[in-house]
């Protein structure tokens, strides 16, 4: 039955992609069309894309394994949106830039900074795609016994076909639908699970779990305090650097609608994130043996309820998981392929975009098969750390500090992004390491983010002559409300 659910989700994704292709031909312009989208639909679409495999499977798994410490992951992922809203979203919308490389080029007037930002977008996208493919493999192996790489390949092929056929153009409604599918796929089984839990006499946690699992910072993890602080930094500051997140703010007509949309997004994310936490808690009672894997959400319905109903609920959860892989992977693939085609292949031609799409999918698929499988939420957390150590300083200083120079930005991106990437690669290929070094590598944000800021500021002070000439005009453009009809300059990307 679960196999049937996966087949249905996959076929539906391909059909909607094909239908979307026809739809986007009849619609005059994708962006105009999406500007008629209400904040609720728009927010659902953002939620659909944002809630990845890590949200759907990973949080429950980590909470089951490590306990209340891991509540910080969903809080951070929700709070990251808040930081993005308050500090970055409105100025960035006004900048006229659609992507992070666009912003980097327009603010710093330097192609070198633009290229560096492009490379970082691609790397972050790959680090984010890799765990999506890995967990698809885990899910497919759990329901069919197929080898781990099959699920990853399946998702990669579906996403590539969809993106290549151009079906992503009218994706807003598809992704909005996927948010509600994911919410249903977690909420309905949870209702049955809680009913079974109540009729089973509402068993509580063991005495040991009450003191060790439910209290934060008391799990067996070494350097728990450091890890938690580092996780908070990475998730709060990393969200703004995720390639597929920023572009979504442009589907709003103006700043007011963008603020309203973000508000709805936060409520939708908050509502969603309570569910995996309860799964983790139930898992501690009914399935403590699956700790350390991402399987708890898939395991519970069969184990607690069983029978045909258990099968149906497992199928529902599996369908939700595949919707999560497909929607997040599609959004990421489009962002990454766009950057590869435009900035690294130097052209927006269709052939370059197709080649870029294959590259965008093939590299993380190779990584997923080759690298040792870490918990999906951990790997996604590393992608957040890279984003927080590179794009967060670039955006915050670029928007709020007029003395940022192109040389300073470049130095900060190289040092911060480079250190974080090195830590991620060490963790993926050889980790986990023990002791203090292990903790520093597993959660690098607490040291790489300050270093990145520091390098960017000091290098800017050392190179005042590299402050871009048009900075005054750029600042006016960034900070004037868009209802003001004034001369915002005529910045256009040199590479397009």
């Amino acid at each position, binding site marked *: 039955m679960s196999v049937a659910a996966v087949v249905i989700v996959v076929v539906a994704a391909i059909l909607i992609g094909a239908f979307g292709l026809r739809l986007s031909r009849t619609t005059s312009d994708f962006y105009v069309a999406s500007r008629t989208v209400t904040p609720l639909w728009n927010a659902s679409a953002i939620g659909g894309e944002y809630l990845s495999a890590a949200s759907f499977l990973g949080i429950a798994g980590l909470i089951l394994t490590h306990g209340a410490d891991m509540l910080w992951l969903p809080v951070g992922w*929700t709070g990251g949106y808040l930081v993005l809203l*308050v500090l970055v979203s409105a100025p960035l919308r006004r900048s006229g830039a659609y992507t992070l490389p666009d912003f980097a080029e327009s603010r710093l007037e330097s192609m070198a900074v633009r290229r560096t930002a492009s490379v970082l977008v691609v790397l972050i996208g790959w680090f984010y795609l890799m765990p999506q493919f890995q967990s698809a493999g885990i899910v497919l192996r759990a329901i069919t016994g197929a080898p781990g790489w099959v699920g990853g390949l399946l998702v990669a092929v579906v996403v590539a076909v969809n993106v290549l056929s151009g079906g992503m153009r009218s994706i807003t409604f598809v992704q909005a639908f996927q948010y509600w599918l994911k919410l249903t796929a977690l909420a309905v089984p949870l209702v049955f699970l809680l009913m079974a839990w109540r009729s089973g006499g509402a068993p509580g*946690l063991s005495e040991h779990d*009450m003191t060790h699992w439910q209290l*934060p910072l008391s799990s067996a993890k070494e350097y728990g*305090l450091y890890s938690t*602080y580092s996780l908070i930094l990475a998730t709060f500051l990393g969200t703004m650097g995720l390639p597929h997140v920023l572009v979504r703010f442009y589907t709003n007509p103006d700043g007011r609608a963008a603020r309203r949309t973000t508000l709805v997004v*936060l409520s939708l994310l*908050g509502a969603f994130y309570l569910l995996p936490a309860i799964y983790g808690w139930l898992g501690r009672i009914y399935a403590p043996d699956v700790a350390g894997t991402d399987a708890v959400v898939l395991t519970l319905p069969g184990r607690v309820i069983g029978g045909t109903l258990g099968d149906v609920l497992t199928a529902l959860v599996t369908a939700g998981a595949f919707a999560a892989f497909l929607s997040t992977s599609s959004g990421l693939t489009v962002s990454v392929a766009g950057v590869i085609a435009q900035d690294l292949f130097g052209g927006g031609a269709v052939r370059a975009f197709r080649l870029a799409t294959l590259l965008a999918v093939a590299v993380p698929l190779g990584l997923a098969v080759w690298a040792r499988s870490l918990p999906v939420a951990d790997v996604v957390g590393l992608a957040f750390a890279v984003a927080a150590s590179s794009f967060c300083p670039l955006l915050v200083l670029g928007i709020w500090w007029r003395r940022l120079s192109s040389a300073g930005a470049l130095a900060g991106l190289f040092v911060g992004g480079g250190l974080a990437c090195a830590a991620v690669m060490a963790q993926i290929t050889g980790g986990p390491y023990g002791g203090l070094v292990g903790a520093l590598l597993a959660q690098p944000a607490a040291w790489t983010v300050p270093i990145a800021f520091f390098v960017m500021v000091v290098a800017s002070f050392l190179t005042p002559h590299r402050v871009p000439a048009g900075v005054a005009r750029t600042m006016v453009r960034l900070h004037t409300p868009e209802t*003001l009809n004034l001369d915002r300059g005529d910045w256009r990307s040199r590479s397009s």
Partner: protein
Amino acid sequence: MQASSEFQELRRRFRAWTFPMTAAFLGWYLLYVVLSGWARDFMGIKVLGNINIALILGLLQFVSTFWIAWAYARHMEKKLDPIADKLRHEVEEQAK
């Protein structure tokens, strides 16, 4: 334009709200971690059955995140959008 007092007022109001608020909410999030690290007995107090203070504070973090976003949207609409509208009208009057 950039030098006009109303434009400066707009920027001042934006910063006067945004920066302290950002600091306040980061502080509130860090408070949870600090309490977890150094006030373990307090966090472990059971309020209702299995539910302890740590869990309640953890869930409140979600609630506060939403509240801050709501307060931000409200502040912008009440305090900033009117000035922006007024500025726009003035610019449009001049253009006529």
